[in-house]
């Protein structure tokens, strides 16, 4: 169970005009602008749900994921995930969650993938039997047999993403945060990733929160959509709520972005 109430987060960004003179001036005096990345974000997500968290670039999706995974401390508001406040007692909290940042990598670059997995076993203190069990299941589902012994640097993006997914599920987390897990993937890999997320949710009841720009991801996976724009939640509902007959999902969402002017 995830509840977020009235979460706000502002960033301070140094700004200056173009040019050398301006750059020198900014050495002594900086102008800051406050960017409201999140203003008054509230939602509740139940166990076992798959929620698509969508919005244009810079809407606040990643900030929300960072707060939920305990990396970022909000300025105000409260958030409770399975009884924990993510940014307080971080180390206890993160045991129960899995996170994939599509644009980053958690695999050790120069060593075979299986070495990273073994390190994760130690880091999360996963009992041997559970680790073997999970590894076997994930290897089968994500077709990792050939990849485990390959150094991460030699994997293609699609192969790497499958390994990233496995890495974040080795400790059987109840909640999975996926920040753009299909970014840059080819059609086959995308389908494999979607299929895997759905199966994981069905088999283990894992709660999944997914940000993406690929509306097919949403169509394939998420029963519920939360739309965020300029730091505000604009819509919280199902795909059927917003889709008019005959429209493709991309058109629907583009329409929505235009309607909210985001």
């Amino acid at each position, binding site marked *: 169970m995830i509840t977020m109430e009235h979460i706000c987060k502002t960033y301070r960004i140094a700004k200056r005009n173009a040019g050398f003179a301006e750059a020198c001036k900014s050495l002594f005096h900086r102008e800051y602008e406050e960017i409201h990345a999140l203003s008054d974000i509230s939602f509740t997500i139940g166990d076992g749900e798959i929620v698509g968290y969508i919005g244009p670039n810079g809407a606040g999706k990643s900030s929300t994921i960072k707060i939920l*995974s305990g990396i*970022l401390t909000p300025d105000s508001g409260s958030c409770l995930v399975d009884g924990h406040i993510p940014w307080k007692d971080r180390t*206890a909290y993160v045991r129960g969650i899995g*996170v994939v940042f599509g*644009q980053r*990598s958690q695999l050790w670059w*120069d060593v075979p993938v299986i070495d990273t997995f073994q390190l994760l076993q130690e*880091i999360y203190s996963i009992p041997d039997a559970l680790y073997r069990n999970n590894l076997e299941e994930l290897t089968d589902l994500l077709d990792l047999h050939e990849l485990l012994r390959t150094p991460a640097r030699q994997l293609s993006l699609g192969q790497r993403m499958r390994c990233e997914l496995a890495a974040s599920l080795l400790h059987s987390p109840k909640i999975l945060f996926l920040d753009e897990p299909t970014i840059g993937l080819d059609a086959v890999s995308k389908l494999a990733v979607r299929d895997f997320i759905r199966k994981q949710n069905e088999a283990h009841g894992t709660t999944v929160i997914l940000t993406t720009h690929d509306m097919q991801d949403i169509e394939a996976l998420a029963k519920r959509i939360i739309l965020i724009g300029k730091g505000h939640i604009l819509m919280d509902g199902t795909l059927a709520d917003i889709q008019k007959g005959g429209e493709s999902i991309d058109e629907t969402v583009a329409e929505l972005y235009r309607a909210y002017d985001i």
Partner: protein
Amino acid sequence: MKKYIAFFRLRFAMGLQYRSAALAGMVTQFVWGAMEILVFRAFYEADAAAFPMSLEATASYIWMQQAFLAFFMVYFMENELFDAIKDGNVAYELCRPIRIYDMWFARSIANRSSRAALRCIPILLVAAFLPKPYGISAPADLQHFLLFLLTMFLGVLAVVAFCMIVYGLAFFTISPEGLRIFFYSVTEFFTGAVIPLPFFPDPVRRMMEYLPFAAMQNVPLRIYSGSMTDSEMFSAVGLQVFWLVAMILFGRLLFARAERRAVVQGG
């Protein structure tokens, strides 16, 4: 504890992979060591009595320093950690049930150990067979040797504890380059990496010996080469322990602050 050992193991194994880097490093260290000894020889020929250490002791100091360079050089910091801080990959480390400070500490020691393991033996072997006074000489006695091992261990911990402070500071800057360059020059000078500390004028040297930088390579290398009296050795070990504890506490404080206010850059 098991977690940190696992971390150490993986980083150590990873370090052993870079064979050509080790070979290149070894060649550099031979050339550098030989050059330094030749320069010192020229000075000693002018007036051997004017120097605080015998040429033999200086040669031992230099060869030990080159053999264990990976332990002692503060500027061998881990680019991967700076990159992780800079480009935001640290996000992954922040969502692990583990203390980042401890994890990175274990990792840094492993990195340095694997580098040293690959390089020290050939350098020590060759230096041992060089003719006197240009080669490495055996330590004065067993007690000196054991004390050398102990202080080298403390010295490595001190080096890593210092690097951890630099990593911690990197959380608060946009680019870590400035920090690296600043600490590169400071530590090269104050640790005795370029010129052993006894060669500095007395008032300066006395001050330098109290600094944390003197707790790194200065103590073990001078104990090995036999240029410290018994009382000097014991106060030096005391200072090493003091600085080690102080730097670890400060580093942890810095990391605690950094983790709270970290803004992970990028989408």
